[in-house]
């Protein structure tokens, strides 16, 4: 039953997107082959998939920890940006440092930036009763405008006529894992973070606190648990994970920030987290699926008339299928007394 529950939504989504392909007069079989080729056809495809999976995975894990605590963080995008922006500010202020630890320091700085940004929303919900759903949306706008101002002003590389910050020197970039592709060591972080978060959520008392406060905050309080503190802490960790994604993008792939920094990974992380069943290990699977689809859809755009719009449609269909399938399975298991 558990297996079926995990697989069924993907299967339904696949069927539905097959129909979608037919509408656009593309053979579903051929389209699937094109997507699969682009996602895993060769080492470059695999590298692309892993690079796209990483921010989805880290932000998805961030969503898991906040949502499990009952704090509905939808500001993963803003926290990712905050992480990259703080890295760029530190670089501008302090320059490049020597040593192999430098790029990892930028990843850490990214995490701290995200944690700080998310803590604003966490504090507002825990101590002032402002729902995180509202505050995180607004904070997304704030950080985006802050980013645009920074790259058009104080952080802009004077030698460039475009809104981009100074480029990190190669020694400050995350090491490559592969000579030919762009695959960098940052992709390891997400795959290490997932089991670590699982351990925290299911094997530590703080993790129990988080899940219990999310399941029934009133009961957590009656059991003398510091619910507000738990909410704030889970939001800080959530922001830390999203900010880490920003740090990895900055010190791994981009090397500089600009007006195009926002790629919506933080928003896409929400369906990724939900499809993963708000479980850290489930999120690994759904992030890989989404990452592969994004990588594969580049091919789809080239070879079919449907383009990447199909991927967007696929996400929506997959999410609906997931929610609907899970609700149906629950209804059938239904409570009969």
């Amino acid at each position: 039953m558990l297996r079926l529950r995990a697989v069924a939504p993907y299967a339904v989504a696949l069927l539905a997107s097959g129909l979608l392909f037919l509408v656009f007069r593309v053979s579903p079989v051929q389209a699937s082959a094109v997507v699969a080729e682009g996602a895993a056809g060769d080492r470059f495809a695999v590298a692309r998939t892993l690079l796209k999976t990483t921010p989805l995975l880290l932000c998805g894990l961030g969503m898991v920890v906040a949502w499990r605590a009952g704090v509905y963080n939808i500001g993963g995008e803003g926290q990712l940006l905050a992480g990259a922006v703080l890295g760029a500010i530190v670089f501008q202020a302090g320059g490049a440092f020597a040593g192999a630890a430098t790029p990892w320091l930028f990843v850490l700085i990214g995490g701290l930036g995200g944690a700080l940004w998310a803590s604003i929303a966490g504090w507002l919900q825990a101590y002032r009763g402002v729902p995180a759903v509202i505050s995180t949306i607004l904070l997304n706008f704030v950080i985006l405008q802050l980013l645009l101002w920074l790259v058009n002003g104080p952080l802009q590389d004077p030698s460039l006529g475009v809104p981009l910050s100074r480029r990190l020197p190669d020694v400050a970039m995350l090491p490559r894992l592969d000579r030919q592709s762009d695959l960098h060591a940052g992709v390891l972080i997400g795959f290490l973070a997932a089991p670590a978060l699982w351990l925290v959520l299911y094997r530590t008392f703080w993790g129990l606190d988080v899940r219990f406060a999310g399941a029934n905050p009133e009961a957590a309080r009656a059991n003398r648990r510091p619910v507000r503190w738990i909410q704030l802490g889970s939001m800080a960790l959530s922001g830390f994970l999203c900010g880490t994604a920003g740090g990895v993008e900055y010190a791994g792939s981009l090397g500089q920030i600009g007006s195009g920094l926002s790629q919506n990974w933080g928003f896409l992380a929400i369906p990724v987290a939900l499809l993963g069943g708000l479980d850290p290990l489930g999120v690994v699977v759904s992030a890989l699926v989404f990452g592969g689809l994004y990588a594969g859809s580049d091919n789809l755009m080239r070879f079919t008339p449907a383009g990447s719009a199909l991927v967007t449609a696929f996400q929506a269909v997959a999410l609906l299928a997931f929610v609907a399938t899970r609700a149906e399975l629950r209804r059938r298991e239904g409570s009969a007394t």
Partner: protein
Amino acid sequence: MPAGLSVRSLRKRFGQLLALDGVSVDFAPGEVHAVVGENGAGKSTLVSHLAGFLLPDEGEILWDGSPLPSGDPLACRRLGISMVHQHFTLVDALTVLENVALASGLGGTVDRRVFEAKIGELLRRYGWELDVHARVDSLSVGQKQKLEILKALWRDGKVLILDEPTATLSDGEVDELFRLLRDLAARGMTVILIAHKLREVLAVADRITVLRSGRLVRTVARSEADEQALSRWMVGEVPPMEVAQIPPRAEPRIVIRDLRVKDDDGRLRVQGVSLEVRPGEIVGITGVDGNGQLELAEAVVGIRRPEAGEVLIDGISVGRHTEEIGYVPQDRHRHGLALSMTISENVLVGLRGRRRFFRGPILLVGRFHSHVQGLVERFGIACRGPNQIVRDLSGGNQQKVVLARALEPFPRVLVAVDPTRGLDVRATMAVHNALLSAARGGAAVLLISGSREEVAALAHRASRISLGRLEPWETPAREDLVLC
């Protein structure tokens, strides 16, 4: 064929569990018919069939001699069969009028004045007091129940089914409800109710059906039954109640001085309470719900900051002691448990001295699992194991999880609010024995309960709470009490 509802050889299975095993009962017009039995005896399953919520596996249900449209609650409602559930199905943010309109099933547009006049007429006919423009969240529990019954009567009701209607009512409200049910029966309705308290059953019912483990034990007229006989039919043998012993004189462990506490809306609900509880002593507070019990309990366990006054545990302010206090909150669903989580997780979250189950920050799963396994056995929690989701347990077993957490390891202070609300005879006995053994073990026990019988039977001293103040209360003689 008899008029009214008849059940013939009804059989219903849920997975492994045979919930009803060949039950036959007749429910006649003009009678109040009580269905009694322990948790899990099949009471709710039986009445859910009558209201069309379940399809029988075998057997039949007849309505005035023809088959009932089983499995179709709307069709049953159209026939005049309505059910009032234990947990209210009301919209808090809407008024009484709007809730009735919502349930009336009227489509299209509704003329508010005509509707209002019709409700007014209905209320007058039964002589009820209910402000139709009041929002539901401003109503008392008793008034909400009236509203539920009003919804059921709207469509010319012929059969009214109530699932444990008295579980959350005060004694006064219970009396009023029973007058109302008698009145409805006198007008020719069939009133079917599930109840736990046998004294109440004998006060209101014309006939009583006793179920045990899904089987019909017997259906008897009220004159043929008394409490001893009913509980014997329900559970077999009932073990005798232990009597509380007077504790030795000692320094008070809980000292409450001139305590004033506000509720979430800023209203002063506890208005100057002073109290002492010594180790080994059970001090009772009884009274009608909503007189400051919740706020008092929360201040004593340290989760609600008092406006004035203080709570001392062994001479130290309660804020530093919260982890050493066992707490059985009034509403186990709202305040006690996370229903979507396991027994283990619900125990661990409030466990005192939990450090021994951790190495550094990591939970020692095996060691903790066997600890909870031990609790399950000691407290007799009927479950598949420590990893079962709490929602799937019966009410009595859920309460045992709350108790196991509060009592193990032994607390120095135990605060219990309505610890047996909604429990059957056997589970009530288990809870009472647990409270007594906590006191014998040296805990200072504060028992806050709406049940006067419970307080009188267990407490060494007791008072009554009214509008946030304690009043002296004359404990009734023990011989006059019936507990269940």
